[in-house]
């Protein structure tokens, strides 16, 4: 699976998140979109829900990855900062 395919799945998860978010809280789809940073679109529980959706979408492709593990959550250099860092992180797991 290449970066573009991984990003397609992340964008699907963003769409799922947007379905239940207010109009002014929509998450834009782009590689630089801030996910879990000081000014990111997700709070801690929002991130958990988002990562669960990403995991589920990968399971639909018969690919099992564990994103929401303690190690990743506590990494000093968080892999969840932006769509691009998440893409890079997922690529290392595949």
């Amino acid at each position, binding site marked *: 699976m290449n970066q573009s395919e991984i990003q397609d799945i992340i964008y699907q998860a963003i769409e799922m998140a947007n379905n239940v978010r207010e109009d002014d809280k929509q998450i834009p789809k782009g590689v630089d979109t801030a996910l879990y940073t000081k000014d990111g679109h997700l709070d801690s*529980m*929002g991130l958990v*829900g988002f990562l*669960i*959706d990403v*995991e*589920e979408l990968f*399971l*639909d492709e018969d690919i*099992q990855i564990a994103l929401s593990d303690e190690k990743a959550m506590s990494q000093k250099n968080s892999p969840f900062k932006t769509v691009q860092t998440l893409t890079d992180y997922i690529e290392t797991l595949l």
Partner: protein
Amino acid sequence: MTTDASSKTLLITGASKGLGKVIAEYYLDKGWSVFGCARSESQIEHDNYQHFQLDITSPEQVATLFKDIRKYTKHLNALINNAGIASMNAFALTPSHTFEKVFATNVHGTFLFCQKALGMLKRANSSCIINMTTVAVPLQLEGEAVYAASKSAVETLTQIIAKEYGVFNIRCNAIGPSPIQTNLIRSVPKDKIDKLIDHQAIKEMATPEDVTNLVDFFLSPASKMITGQIIYLGGISK
């Protein structure tokens, strides 16, 4: 078994006998698709029932179970953590391995299923977890220290999961049945059961239907504001 996005789907542990079997059959009769699991084989024969044999304390086997369930459905409307083991012994005489076994099944099993089911429960848009506890917790029954302690842990998990999963529209509640004639209490002496029933506001042996009634209540869409609750049968409260 065939399911689609509109199917009502339930996963229940400990489905091969006792209350688990009763609840599974009850929801099959109501038209749900039911996934059951247990260490032993199932005697349930139904087009909408799929049984899996596994050890619920094994993270690997539980992960495989969810992978297998995904072949039938992408969502779960309900998870009932019914599997449990009891232990009756004076605290001072309880072997360490009994503690490990009881906590592994009752606490770790519940933990694994609540965690692994999250994605599929979330996809149902509105779903419910029901954990099973016991009246031994509020009654602080002598001779059941380890069993009651394990179920205390289940109650705490239930209430904290209710808070954390609420944002995903997943409710989490627990049922504490008063004595029912199931395999779990088959070896409990009659005088002990009588004494236990005497603690109840309603001094009767409960029936499996009393439990399915409460399950119905928790699973009802009308109970959308009910989460983090522990309900004991027979009028017992903390």
